[in-house]
């Protein structure tokens, strides 16, 4: 459970997050959507502690996040852009993360096999293609069986087969009770995976709650049309 209250962040003249209140429920998939520069990534980075908010509180499982970052041992993060140290191999990278996380964490290697990464792990990361690096990125996020996962555009750059594998993995892990926070520009994908939606415009939450509530309120059949409806009419759902 993640509770966010009165979150504000300003970069120069730009108010990126403006008094954001949001609850991310455990065991559900929450999609963070919104136009470009709406504050989606800043919101996720604030929860992860990558960005320091100007005001507001973030509670993860009831405790305010602190700089020691112990709460992050329960979090997996898949950043939008996957760039790794060029001369390390995939195996080095997994070993490094295991070293940093401590050996106690249970390992989940299923994505390494289902994405066909096993044979790629001995190569330096610099020779891997962008798509393969994105697969490594995905496998790494799931590797320590965290109970909360933050996936920033998880299927961008993946071929259809790998993209399906990742989506199946998300669905399967959700059934295991894990919490997901996703961003994506592909609305049909979010409709397939997400339970809840947090709709950000200009740093403010325009709507948050179950997807079917948004569809009902806007009287639209698909998430894409519901979002478009809100954007066009400016209706507060």
């Amino acid at each position: 459970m993640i509770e966010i209250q009165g979150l504000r962040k300003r970069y120069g003249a730009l108010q990126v997050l403006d008094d954001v209140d949001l609850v991310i429920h455990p065991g559900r998939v929450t999609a963070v959507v919104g136009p470009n520069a709406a504050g989606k990534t800043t919101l996720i980075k604030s929860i992860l502690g990558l960005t320091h908010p100007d005001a507001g509180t973030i509670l993860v499982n009831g405790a305010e996040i602190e700089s020691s970052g112990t709460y992050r041992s329960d979090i997996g993060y898949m950043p939008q852009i996957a760039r790794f140290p060029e001369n390390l191999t995939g195996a080095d990278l997994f070993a490094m993360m295991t070293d940093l996380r401590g050996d106690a964490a249970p390992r989940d290697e299923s994505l390494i096999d289902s994405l066909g990464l096993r044979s790629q792990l001995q190569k330096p990361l610099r020779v891997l293609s962008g798509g393969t690096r994105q697969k490594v990125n995905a496998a790494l996020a799931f590797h320590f069986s965290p109970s909360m996962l933050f996936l920033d555009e998880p299927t961008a750059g993946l071929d259809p087969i790998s993209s399906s594998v990742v989506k199946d993995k998300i669905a399967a892990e959700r059934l295991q009770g894990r919490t997901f926070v996703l961003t994506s520009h592909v609305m049909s994908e979010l409709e397939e995976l997400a339970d809840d939606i947090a709709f950000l415009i200009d740093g403010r939450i325009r709507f948050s709650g179950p997807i079917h509530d948004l569809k009902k309120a806007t009287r639209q059949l698909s998430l894409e049309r519901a979002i478009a409806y809100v954007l066009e009419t400016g209706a507060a759902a």
Partner: protein
Amino acid sequence: MTTIVRKIARYGVRDLIRSRWLLGYAGFFAIATWALLRFSDTETKALLSLVNVVLFVVPLANLVFGAMYLYGAREFVEMLLAQPLRRRELFAGLYLGLTVPVSLAATIGIGAPLVLLGVGPATLQTGALLAGIAAVLSAVFTGVATVIAYRIEDRVRGLATALGVWLTLAIVYDGVALLAAVQFADYPLERPMLALMLANPIDLARLVLLLHFDVAALLGYTGAVFERFVGGTAGLTLAGIVLSTWVAVPALAGARLFRRKDF
């Protein structure tokens, strides 16, 4: 040093020692040292030329390579920040993972030919001092690179700043110091000049090295003042303290920027 710092540093070292760039950098010093020793009349002359090469190349290479490396590691750092670590540990690990390999590359590049060619004991001693100074200067300028990389968001502007810092400290600074010396030639300048040299790590390194060569006599009265200053134990201690400060201050400033930064 915590185990986390050591772990992060270890993977940084593992990454960099496989880097072709670093191999080329160490190779450059090895070839320069070997060639200078081979083709100079005396070993002292060879080392004097090497001092100039080191003082020119080490700051430039570490500023530019350090900044490039840190900008390139940006996305990976974001991933590491999402792990259960403290920022200060992450920074210390990243800094050491960068500084240790580049310092070693310069030290080994200079040191290996000296040992392999079997130079005299005096040359070996001076060479060891030179290799040590190269390592210290590497640490100074990778520290400055962290300040640049975590202060300036845009990497092109960051690299331009790195070059600007180098130009200022390596070239413009001496020009200004020389101009001041000529302008105020009628005044006793030893102490202000000494202060100017302490304030620039490259000049300080040059001062320590040149006085070691016993060429201070060539510098006239000023040289004598400097020799009395740096030649004595007190002077060497002060030079050591100032050089250590030059290592510590940029690294600590980088750490502070890193801790407060929004990634």
